[in-house]
């Protein structure tokens, strides 16, 4: 145990097993991106090759077709149970980023997710967010309780000491569990390289461009890059100065866009 990745891996596996032990009705949010891919690999390690809970994907209908194809192929390979959630009402009413990006995120993602949580009664939800992504995520707990409406009381979070995670909550609470909160973007790629885990091909450069963060097509931009392999991406990240989510339009809407979305239950 001398390597930093070993330490991160052990921490994450410990958290995953804790969540599985504590919440009889547990699910994992699968966004198809690199972070969920790492989280799933860690879960398969934690549970000796199995995924003993469903993967939930919230479909906004705006994802790239390559993402959906990758999702379907991988879930089959893992033998996972995939649950796809859609806010049908909002989709039927024509919700899209042209009606306001933040409104679209709130409707198709947050509401799509909370509808699914209500319908399935999930008590615990595993999410692959990381502290180094942006400011409000830097403030998160590993076990982060949410109220009836999925709201996050970021001003009054419970203490969390060592590996003793708080698991006594009032009725109606569900808990977001964040097994890779302490990983950085670079750690994710170094781990993908070390473990030789397959990743959605959109991350690799084609014609001088690649995706650094994956989301819905209308709101996700590419960066200039020639990195066409995992190793090349690692080299690129060591010198890049722009933040990871610069290509995600919803983050750039206003100063506290992400905090406000997340306080209401966004991932």
């Amino acid at each position, binding site marked *: *145990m*001398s*390597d*930093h990745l*070993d*330490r991160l*891996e*052990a921490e994450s*596996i*410990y958290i995953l*097993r*804790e969540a*599985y*032990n504590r919440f009889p009705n547990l699910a994992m949010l699968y966004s198809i991106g690199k972070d969920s891919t790492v989280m799933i690999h860690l879960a*398969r*390690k*934690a*549970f*000796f*090759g*199995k995924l003993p809970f469903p993967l939930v994907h919230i479909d906004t209908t705006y994802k790239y077709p390559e993402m959906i194809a990758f999702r379907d192929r991988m879930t089959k390979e893992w033998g996972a149970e995939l649950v796809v959630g859609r806010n049908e009402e909002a989709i039927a009413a024509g919700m899209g980023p042209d009606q306001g990006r933040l409104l679209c995120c709130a409707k198709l993602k947050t509401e799509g997710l909370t509808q699914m949580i209500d319908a399935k009664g999930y008590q615990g939800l595993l999410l692959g967010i990381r*502290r*180094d992504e*942006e*400011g*409000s995520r*830097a*403030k998160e*707990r590993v076990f982060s309780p949410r109220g009836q409406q999925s709201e996050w009381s*970021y*001003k009054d*979070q*419970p*203490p*969390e*000491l*060592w*590996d*003793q995670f708080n698991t006594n909550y009032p009725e109606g609470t569900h808990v977001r569990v964040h097994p890779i909160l*302490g990983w*950085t973007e670079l750690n994710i790629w170094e781990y993908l390289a070390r473990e030789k885990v397959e990743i959605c091909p959109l991350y690799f450069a084609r014609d001088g461009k690649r995706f650094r963060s994956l989301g819905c097509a209308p709101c996700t931009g590419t960066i200039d890059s020639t990195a066409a392999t995992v190793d090349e991406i690692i080299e690129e990240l060591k010198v890049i*100065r*722009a*933040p990871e989510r*610069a290509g995600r339009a919803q983050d750039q809407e206003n*100063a*506290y866009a992400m*905090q406000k979305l997340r306080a209401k239950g966004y991932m």
Partner: protein
Amino acid sequence: MKHQGRIAPPGKNGREMKTAETLKIVIVGHVDHGKSTLIGRLFHDTGMIPETRVAEIAGTCERQGRPFEYAYLMDALEEERDQNVTIDTAQTFFKTDKRTYVIIDAPGHKEFLKNMITGAASADAAILLLDGVEGVQEQTRRHAYLLSLLGIRQVVVAINKLDMVDYDRQVFQRTENDIRAFLHTLDITPASVVPISAREGDNIASPGDRMIWYGGPTILQALDNFANVRAETGLPFRFPVQDVYKWDNERIYAGRVETGQVKVGDPVTFLPSGRQTEVKSIRLWPNEDLAQARAGECVGFTFADELFAERGEVLARSDDLPTTVGEIKASLFWLARNSFVKGKNYRLKLATAEVDATCVAIEERLDSSTL
């Protein structure tokens, strides 16, 4: 404390598994003494702040009509910026040539003590920051006390805002003497006491030329001088059972080795139940089974005999067992709003065990606000 179940001490908590070339540093101190500013400075001077982040902060400051605030790097929440106060702990990363640091910002305000402890509990080392002019204040004392209670022994003291007194050596020395004397009562010897201006950048990454009277390390040098937290070797094997998976007609006992090591074939005992068996296999998907498991590793065990041990029991080698007790003496730091009551039933968590516990006697009491 008396408790009904019997539990075995599982060695110390997870601290000693920390071994990496990444060091977690918590920055503590009285509110407004400049913690967030120091962190912003560290990031700026090590080139870790993306241009767009600087632009975002500059924009917010301009709208608020105030000079550039480094503090906004960690104080990302709107309420924190509007009220100019750190509410919750945050973690960010920066690098020196020597290693990567995780920086944990801990709120100084009394109201947010639970958040300060949440941040500090995961740290390997600490910077205790104080305003050179205001000197040792209530939260300076309380935070220092918490560092000693949490077992954080590697501490650097930073005496800040010396630009406000023209880098006066005497102001620095007065505060230095006070804080050294106080830390002495807590058994903490600071690695160094560094005079700084977080805002102007003196003695953060480079010494500058305004405090030539000081010959010691800068903050960055002091951090790089901290030792890596290494796994303690030579400790007995302790494995608290986290879960038991009954899959494919076998039972896998999952958990993390807290200390020591064990090999396939070793005779082992579960405590407190006392069940004995032998290690049959050590699982680590997708690899081949392991021959041995070591401190810090999350593994799964199968055993030679059919057992019914559960979460909370501690596995030890039969030739080196811990003592099991029904009564322990402990230092408690009581955070809850309601008072701790003698004779009342509480839930005691230790590693993965949870037992009912009752307090039989309170021998000594200390109010951290009157230190």
